[in-house]
């Protein structure tokens, strides 16, 4: 099946103003998302996730590389064709308040994309707005509300309704629940799952929350400094992480159970600057098992299972496993318990 989205060698450099130099935000990312699937992109802040998402939506021009949408090259799409295409690919951001102008009421906010992209008359638009509100489990009572008078969860529902107004096939979800409470988070994620199934939506789910990505993504791509270091079926990657960075990332997730003693991979060393990327593996400066060879050339992807690959040369002789350790200082309270 033709992927909904294919990125091929995407690069984004941000020039740094008068003094010259560039920020290497995305450094050659290729990926594909099958229809109806969710690709989770995880990585630390600054690793280029949002930049990647914005390029995929043509909200930001790539420096290099190509973007195909449902088989069609849209890298250079412009003018009316680009505007028309926008109806098919939408975005939901972390903080719904960023996306919702406080000067409009909920009705106007959801109606706006309908005005832009459809020729529905006022009555039909209102009907559609109400339908959209219902699909995000809100009622007509919200039509006249200002976003200021919405809770975080309600505001995110409105933002989702607005994103769905033009009936897109593809959504970029950029940290869609990071600003929400646990139980609200749960309900928004359930809503997104349901909408995906009802409408056959394809998601690019950007998050630094590994638990969330594990539960909601089919495929996962782990980003580090603008490169994908490991990618594959979510279950495979989370259960058998091969890249040292993925291993460290997974080992650093904190269990919400104080009786589970943390045991994790301790990292040292500095994260390289995206202004001055080293020539070799970008993780080498923090990698406990880096070799000299890691610092000379970027590692190629190694296939480590069906659809699962990782870019680490130590996979070749299977010396890519990191050891875990207990963190140095336990809680004072834990210490007291231990001494009882």
């Amino acid at each position, binding site marked *: 099946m033709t992927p909904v989205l294919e990125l091929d060698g995407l690069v984004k450099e941000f020039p740094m103003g008068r003094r010259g130099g560039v920020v290497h935000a995305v450094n050659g990312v290729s990926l594909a998302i099958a229809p109806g699937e969710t690709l989770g992109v995880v*990585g630390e802040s600054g690793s280029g996730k949002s930049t990647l998402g914005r390029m995929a939506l043509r909200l930001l021009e790539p420096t290099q590389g190509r973007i195909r949408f449902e088989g069609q090259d849209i890298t250079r799409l412009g003018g009316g064709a680009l505007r028309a295409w926008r109806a098919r690919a939408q975005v939901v951001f972390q903080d719904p308040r960023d996306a919702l102008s406080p000067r409009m009421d909920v009705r106007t906010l959801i109606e706006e994309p309908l005005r832009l992209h459809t020729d529905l008359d006022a009555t039909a638009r209102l009907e559609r707005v109400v339908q959209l509100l219902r699909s995000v489990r809100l009622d007509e009572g919200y039509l006249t509300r200002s976003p200021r008078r919405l809770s975080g969860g309600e505001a995110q529902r409105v933002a989702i309704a607005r994103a769905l107004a033009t009936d897109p096939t593809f959504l970029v979800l950029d940290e869609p629940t990071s600003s929400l409470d646990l139980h609200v988070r749960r309900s928004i994620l359930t809503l997104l799952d349901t909408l995906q199934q009802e409408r056959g939506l394809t998601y690019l789910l950007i998050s630094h929350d590994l638990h969330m990505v594990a539960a909601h993504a089919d495929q996962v791509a782990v980003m580090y400094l603008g490169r994908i270091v490991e990618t594959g079926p979510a279950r495979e990657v989370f259960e058998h992480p091969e890249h040292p960075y993925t291993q460290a990332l997974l080992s650093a997730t904190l269990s919400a*159970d104080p009786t589970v003693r*943390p*045991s994790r991979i301790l*990292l040292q060393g500095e994260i390289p600057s995206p202004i001055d990327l080293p020539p070799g593996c970008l993780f080498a400066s923090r990698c406990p098992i880096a070799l000299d060879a890691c610092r000379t050339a970027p590692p190629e992807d190694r296939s480590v*299972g069906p659809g699962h690959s990782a870019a680490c040369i130590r996979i070749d002789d299977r010396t890519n496993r990191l050891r875990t350790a207990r963190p*140095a*200082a336990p809680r004072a309270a834990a210490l007291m318990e231990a001494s009882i």
Partner: protein
Amino acid sequence: MADPTPAPTPPEGTPPEGTPPDPPIAVPHTARPPGEVLLEVDGLQVEYPGEGDPIRAVRTFDLVIRERELVGLVGESGSGKSTAALALMGLVRPPGRVTAGHVRLRGQDLLGRSDAQLRGVRGREIGLITQDARAALNPLVRIGDQVANVVRAHARVDGTTARRRAVEALRAVGIPDPERRVRAYPHELSGGMAQRVLIAIATVHDPVLLIADEPTTGLDVTVQAQFLDTLQRRVQATDAAVLFVTHDLGIVAQYCDRVAVMLQGEIVEQADVRTIFSAPSHPYTRELVGLARDRDVPERRRRDRSMPSSQAEVAETPRSSAEAAEARSTRRAGGRLARTEP
């Protein structure tokens, strides 16, 4: 260069090479139990004017923090956590105001002090990391200068020394290439980077009390772990304490000694961390702990999805089922295949 001959397959059950067993738990001699009372908050109340009645953002808030303690403050958004955190430093902005209560730092009343006196306390004795890092930074000033200004606000040092300390402080919070990044303006930073700058500013003077309002939301878990470990070590080494506002119960479970739970302006429950998780008494706490527990186990295993709660448990999960063995051998086959390709 990598060895082109495939390594022999280790027998099942043998840990792969390069995975030595966990070292024994090291109990560092530096870790000591909580000490003297550092901060005492009695009957704190804070209001904002509302459309009709005032919003009583903080209504019942009594809290004691001792030296070397990390105290977690949890609760849903809007429950008054940030307002309380700001009030502890006399930072509630008008028209909001503290209507009742006392805040004492080492016995010294803070709320009665003038703005000028409070400025001396802030940054030096109490450090604050606010929730919205970008809003807390001055958009017109280079980040290096912002850190250096804080250095100079409480220490008699010349400009060069202040700038050098700024670079070091930025390096300590994991800002790559701080020598160069000092020249950046806040809008040139990602949210997580801005957060790190704020952490650097709040900790540059080794405050005795750090109030951290969701300080790690934008940080990668590996960086978060480094930050929290550093914080914990610093607290132990300098007899400081931390009030940690967070909605991440993983952080609370793994790093905090005590937890206060807020609901609609009130601390409804306060206990040591084990009790909060093993015997939560308030219904809201029970719900919260329940949600966090099943966060560890994904609610939906559609198709092929799952994730164990922690890497420690991955290692302990017996992989004896035929399915797991098959998956493993497929992966090995894949690995070999990859090596024979040019």
